[in-house]
């Protein structure tokens, strides 16, 4: 725990960060930018887990280990996503989100 800083503040921070990510996801027109917004969200969660663990149940390391796994999974996910996005780029030479609006209705 950080002296003088309560969990409320940390969680508010992560919540705001999370929703900034969501906002980014909702408004970005570029697939990579959307992916970056996702990273913001994942980070928010990782902080959450660590902070909650540190503040509320420091004896058990569940949250802290969880956040490690989150990072690992985020890495894998990002790698896969980027591979697909890049493949799309090679097919269409653009990564605008408009390119993936063909399947609809």
């Amino acid at each position, binding site marked *: 725990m950080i002296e003088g800083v309560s969990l409320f503040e940390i969680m508010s921070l992560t919540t705001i960060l999370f929703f900034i990510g969501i906002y980014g996801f909702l408004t970005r027109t570029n697939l990579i930018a959307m992916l970056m917004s*996702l990273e913001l969200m994942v980070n928010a969660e990782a902080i959450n887990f660590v902070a909650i663990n540190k503040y509320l149940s420091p004896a058990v390391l569940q949250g802290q280990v969880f956040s490690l796994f989150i990072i690992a*999974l985020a890495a894998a*996910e990002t790698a896969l996503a980027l591979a697909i*996005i890049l493949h*799309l780029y090679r097919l269409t030479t653009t990564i605008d989100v408009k390119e993936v609006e*063909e*399947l609809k209705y």
Partner: protein
Amino acid sequence: MNLDSLMLMRDEWFLTAVIMLLLIAEVLLSAKNKKYIIQLALILFGAYTISAFLPNDTGALFGSSYKTYPLVHYFKAILAFGVFIILLQSVNWLKEKLLPYDFTAEFFILIFSSLLGLNFMMSAGDFLMFYIGLELSTMPIIALTAFEFWNHRSVEAGVKYILLASISSAILLFGVSLVYATAGSINFDVIKNALQLPLLEIIGLIMIFIGIGFKISLVPFHFWAADVYEGAPTVISNYLSVISKGGAVYVLMTLLFVTFTAFQKEWNWIMYGTAILTMVVGNLFALRQQNMKRFLAFSSIAQAGFILLAMLSNNELGVKAIIYFLLIYIFSNVAAFGVVHVISLKTGKENIDDYNGLYRTNPKLSLVLMIALFSLAGIPPVAGFFAKFFLYAAAASKGYYVLIFIAVLNVTVSLYYYLLPVRAAFLRVSDHPIPFFKSDNYSRLAFIITMIGLLVLGLYSGVFEFISGISNIF
């Protein structure tokens, strides 16, 4: 901890072994012999499927982060069986499309890992395992969705799927963190007794629900499903609509019935609304679809709505109904998708209008399609009827008659669109019908298995009795 107790996990071990063996085979086999990978994979997986049906004990491993009991064990076997049928159907596709690129082994490895992920997810005893299982089941399948890499639609589906899956899992994870904050643990057993239901926790639980709902494709989290199913290779759409959905339903069921029992009252409100929304929206969207895959996607969304009926019951009857329904649903949907797959592979036609006059040229295929669709619509004597009936019964056991009423009205609507392909195939004639062709033996075997399943499982009550014998998970 000894070897015996590790055998509790043998479903997972065996599947991992299959994956590893395939990996090794891929490396060892010379380019000329690569085509045997298909047979090898089928044999290995077949062996695994058979082993999965052998009985297993109840127990928990790794500090109860892994749990097994008969129901989950046999449900894994059911899923494995479903995957096996899907694999049978996919052989021809693999031979034609993937073998030239030498991606067959990868296909099998990815699909098996996904199944492995589902297995872990269903057996998970804490949120970490649950989350990892979820991701493990999703990520390979995303790769597979984009596997027809020469096809823009397939890639688009892949992009949509990975981005939406990521955001849904992000939301789920945020929810988990909130629950972790309030309940103080990620272990289900602990959480079960620690639920106090402050607002924060409710938000967390709802976010978890949304994460799972995304995988089951409940309304309003269903939008990805249609697009992805349509774009993905048919085999993968098939897998997504039955196997991955089935696993997610199972998890939702265990979470609801076992872990979040304290949340019962609120759950029911959510379920009630979501069930209606899902049925109605799924049906209405399916009504006007031309593309068969998209059509089946919406149909499977609507089916998810029906499953929620039984989720409301929160009793053993509900468990039975859900498991039985999923079993039948696997057979029906796999058969339906199988027909679409076979035809699409032979002729590239996927629209309902293209099916005009199908019965005159391909009577057997049309019959399979009809029986499968009737089963989805819930018409006796096909098994789907019994499955749906038990879902209603489960809901009725708690007195949700109004909901059942809405559901049965929806069944009527759904009957309309399920009859549309039947109408095209049987009632109509076409100047350019799909020409006669012979399906390959693997697909035929798959069709025969599904047909036997659909016609026998309902009339013969033994399977249901067996399921009800093991469905006390409370």
